[in-house]
Structures are given as C-alpha cells and as structure tokens.
C-alpha cells in the first residue's frame, strides 16, 4: 500500500508540456490579442483626466439605471482618486471588462447549446463544477507557464473561474422560456435561429444578465489572485501591502475594489432600470 501513488501531477505536467509544444503558436496569438485589448482599454481609461472618465461612467449609470447610481458613482470614484488608487483602479477595471467580455462570449453560446441538448448539458455540468470549485490559484500555474508573467495569465484564470455562472444562467434562462411560446414560433414556421433570436434570447435576457452580473462579481474576486502573477492594478497593491505588512495601503486598495464592485454590480443587476430591455418582460 505504501507504493500506491497515482501520478496525477506527473500526468498534468506531461499534458502541459505537450500542450505547450503543440499549440505554442496559438497561445502566442491569444496572449498578444488579450494583452493588446487590455492595454488599449486601460489606455483609454487612464489617459483622459480622472474627472472626465468619472463623468462618462456616471453618465452610463444614469442612462442604464438612475440618477442615484450616477451620484454614487461620482462619490465613489472621488474616494478612489482621494486614496491615490485611480491608475490601479482603471487597470483593474480594464482587466475586468476584457475578462467579462471574453467569458460572456464563451459562456452564452455554450449555455444556449447546453439548453438545446440534454446530452451536452450532462457533460458540461461536472466540468462546470470542476471549474468553479477548483481553487482558482491552481489555474495560475499552468496559465503562467503558457502565457508568462503579466496580465494575461491572471485574465485567463479569471475567465475560467468566472464564466461558469454565465453558462449556467444562460442555460437556465433559455430553458425557462415557456414551451408554448416556442411552439407558437414553430407553428408559424419560424426557423430555430429566428426562434432563438426573437423569442428565447429576449425572454431569457433578464436571467442571462443576472448570470453576467455574477461573472463580473467573480471576476472582481479574482483581482487579488491575478495581482499575484503581475497583473498589477488594485490586486497588485493588495499583494504588495501583504508582503510589506502595510495595513493602510491594503485597506486603500481594498476599499477601491469594493467601490468598483458596487458600481459594476448596480450597473448590471436587474431591477431599478429605466431601460425596458434590461427588465423582465411583463414588468414594463
């Protein structure tokens, strides 16, 4: 019994080596793509003066929700500027937005497929459980090997960890569309694509939006972990303050994460919106 040892770790390393050899070109392209997108967005957010960016974000809050959120946005972002975390906050915001976009682009189609195929749904479910319950730091190691230090491995780990609710909520939302409405589409001769586009997606939208909201929140929770591999931003300062036992800096970076989280959560949560399209049908 003493000799019993499953060499799972070795297998993972062999598998990783093989991946690295076989898809080096693809990984390199992906790295450049993610890096450039992120850098571009961060540049866009941090180049104008802080008040201009704050006003734009507040205006977005007003347009999607209401003036209260807009006011809260201004106050929150002034606090971030006040504790000298503006640059970091914009780096983090950039990372979150890019990671969320990629996670959504992957998660929503996967959720739609899972909703239409019970077989795929069964296969996907344990994979989703695995992705969400594996300690997220574990993703960092292969991501580091594949994508090298910087913002990209942090982003990849974030996407893997955060996309799960996107898939689950999309599947749930599509399945939750009443069968008779879909049948009505079929009975009038609509194609599957038309039914998806005109009936299932609009009716599932509130649920899908709740999923994307969860994706964003999970992505924010990954900020600090991404900071450990050199993603910078607010996570970088939290990690640095931990290394230096600097409670003050840690709190300043931490409160900035909280403010960003509240802004993004309120912006993407359902309810309280002025826009009909973000609300559940039948509540207009």
């Amino acid at each position: 019994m003493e000799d019993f040892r499953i060499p799972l770790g070795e297998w993972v390393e062999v598998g990783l080596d093989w991946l690295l050899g076989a898809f080096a070109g693809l990984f390199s392209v992906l790295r450049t793509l993610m890096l450039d997108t992120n850098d571009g967005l961060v540049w866009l957010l941090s180049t104008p003066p802080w008040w201009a960016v704050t006003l734009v974000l507040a205006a977005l809050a007003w347009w999607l929700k209401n003036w209260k959120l807009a006011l809260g946005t201004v106050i929150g972002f002034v606090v971030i500027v006040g504790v000298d975390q503006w640059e970091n906050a914009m780096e983090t915001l950039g990372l979150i937005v890019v990671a969320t976009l990629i996670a959504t682009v992957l998660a929503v189609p996967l959720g739609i497929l899972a909703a239409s195929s019970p077989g795929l749904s069964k296969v996907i479910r344990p994979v989703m459980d695995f992705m969400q319950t594996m300690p997220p730091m574990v993703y960092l190691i292969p991501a580091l090997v594949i994508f090298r230090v910087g913002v990209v491995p942090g982003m990849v780990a974030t996407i893997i960890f955060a996309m799960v609710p996107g898939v689950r909520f999309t599947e749930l939302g599509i399945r939750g569309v009443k069968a008779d409405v879909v049948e009505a589409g079929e009975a009038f001769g609509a194609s599957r694509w038309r039914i998806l586009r005109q009936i299932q997606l609009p009716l599932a939208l509130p649920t899908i939006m709740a999923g994307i909201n969860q994706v964003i929140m999970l992505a924010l929770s990954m900020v600090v972990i991404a900071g450990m591999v050199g993603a910078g931003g607010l996570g970088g300062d939290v990690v640095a303050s931990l290394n230096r036992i600097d409670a003050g800096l840690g709190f300043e970076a931490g409160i900035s994460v909280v403010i960003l989280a509240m802004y993004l959560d309120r912006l993407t949560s359902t309810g309280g919106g002025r826009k009909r399209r973000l609300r559940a049908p039948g509540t207009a």
Partner: protein
Amino acid sequence: MSHSTAEPAVRVQNVYKIFGKKPKDIIRRLKEGEDREDLKELGTAAVIDASFEVAPGEIFVVMGLSGSGKSTLIRTLNGLQPATEGTVSVLGQDIASAPARELRSIRSHSMAMVFQNFALLPHRTVLENAAYGLEIQGVGSEARRAEAARVLDRVGLQGWHDHYPHELSGGMQQRVGLARALASGNDILLMDEAFSALDPLIRREMQEQLKQLQKELGRTIVFITHDLNEAMYLGDRIAVMKDGRIAQIGTPEDILSRPADDYVASFIADVDRGRALTARSVMLPLQGVDAGQRAAAERAGSVRSDATLQEVVPVALEGEGILAVRDGAGGDVVGYLTTARLLEAMGTRTDFTAAAEAQSPAEGQPASRDEGGEA
C-alpha cells in the same frame, strides 16, 4: 358545409403517433389487436389509426377528454409532432415527407395555430404579436402592421394595439391569438382548446364570434375541445376521440341521433341540444304533413332552416303546434316542425334528471332569448 366535391384541405390517413423507445413494435402489436393499456410499459400510443378528411371551409372539431390524444393529433397536422406512421397531407402537400425547410414554409404559408394558453410573445405589443405570422412570411413592416391592425380591429381590439399582452384580460389575449392566426392569411386554422382557458361567458362570446367570422372568411378550421357542447355548437362535423382512437365521426345530428357506442352515448346525455341542433336537422319532410297542418303552419309563421332549436322555441310558443321551416328568410318551405317533434329532439333518451343536473348553470342560456328565429 358542403363537403365531398372539392379536394380536401386536410387529409389524414391511418395516422399513428407513439411516444416511446420502440414505436414500430407498438404499432405492430396494436394492429394485432392488443390494447394500448397492455402496451403502457413500452410507450404511449397517443394516436391510433386516425383517418379523416376536412373539406375546405369546414369547421372540423376533434372532441375528447384529456389523454384522448386530441392535442397530439392536431400537432401531427403541422408536424409539431410528426406522425409515427400514416400520411398527413395539407392542401395536397405531404407533411410527413416534407424536409424541414419545406415544412416551415407550409406552416408559414398554409396554416396558423391558436393555443389554449394563448402563447403570445410577452415582450411584443399586441400589434407586433398579431403581425408575427406575416413577419415570418417576409412581409414588409408597413404592410404587415396595416394588415395586423385591420384584423385586430375586426376582432374588437381597437385601441389596444400598442399594449402588451399582460395588460389584457384572458379573453382579449385570445383575441390577439386569433388575430395572429387570421392575419397570417393562411387558409387552415388549427385551434387547440382555444377557448378552454376562458371563463364561460367570455367563452360563449368567443364561440359566437368565431362562427360569425367563419361565415365571412370561410377558412378551414380544425378545432380541438374537451367540451361536447362547444363541439356541437361550432362543428360542421365532429370526431369523438377515446384512448387515442377516433370513436365516431359525424355531424352533430348524426352523433346525437346515432351514437356509435356507449362511450359516445354517455357524452351526449349532457349536450345542450337547443344550441347544437338546427331546425333543418330535426324537421319533418314536406310530404309527412297533411293539408290541415300545412294551413296551420301558414298562419303560425316560420323559422329559418339554420336556426338553432333554442331560437325556434319562442316562435313555436306563439304558434298552433306546427311551424314551417324555410330555406333562408322568405325562402321556400323545406319542412315542418311540430311541437311534439321539437320536444322529442330537445329531450334525451337517457335519464333526463341526470342530464339536467350535469348541465352546469353557468352555461345555461336565458330561456327568453327570441332574436334571430323569425323569418
């Protein structure tokens, strides 16, 4: 109402619909005479050996209790539930062998469906819902909105075009469902328990409106219901289903006067005959009446041949025991109705008190309605 001469709009031949792992096996054993109850372990035989034809312009009602297979049967007509065996053809096109694209085209250009629970798109306005069939046909925005608006006005929804379905009552929502089907302009209407979710008064109103619309539009309607009174009132012909099989097909008069088996007979005890039967269906032939009675009938006045018996009763009350039945207002006399004949037709041969109790008071008609009967 005139069948048989024209090519049928819908033709169903020996259709089976089986749910389960080995449908062909089940069909074979059903053909060998086994009962569907014996085969329950293997699967569900929802429709067994159904055959019928629906003539253009006819209202064909499929009547049965829940689990009788009627909803499955109507879905084999547009391929939402493809038949396991047998052929279904709609306006000469075979539904079973049609590839997916062609089937969609048949659905969008030949048929339209009205659902029990309305199945309106909750995120679209009443007008957009009514225009949905035309939208799928590829009709341009302006044209389809204009047509949808016209049909909505026709079913009595003026002023509601820009509301959302949840703002409407059940009866109004089903009017939208009806408008959506009518606006598509397609000849064949499939109505699946279309009025069953409505309360009795609204339901009666919708039945009357459908009959009225049908007089003007002359569509071909396949109507599913569990309510034999509704079937008798609406149907030119009725198919009674039981346990997946069609027990009898006939006109309301056929079914009332010659039920095919005990099952059908047990149903018709509850029928509101005054509303289901027309003067034509129960009148005495011209030569069955002597000269004295004829003279009495001349004095008493007459009724139209398509008047229901409940419309005939008030006229009969004022007469001298006999009425003339005319083909349309002021038309030729086609037969006679004596009070005795009227009473005989209104009554059921089964236990009368039981039938009277089964008649729900909400569906009873005020006895004093007398419009429409006189010529």
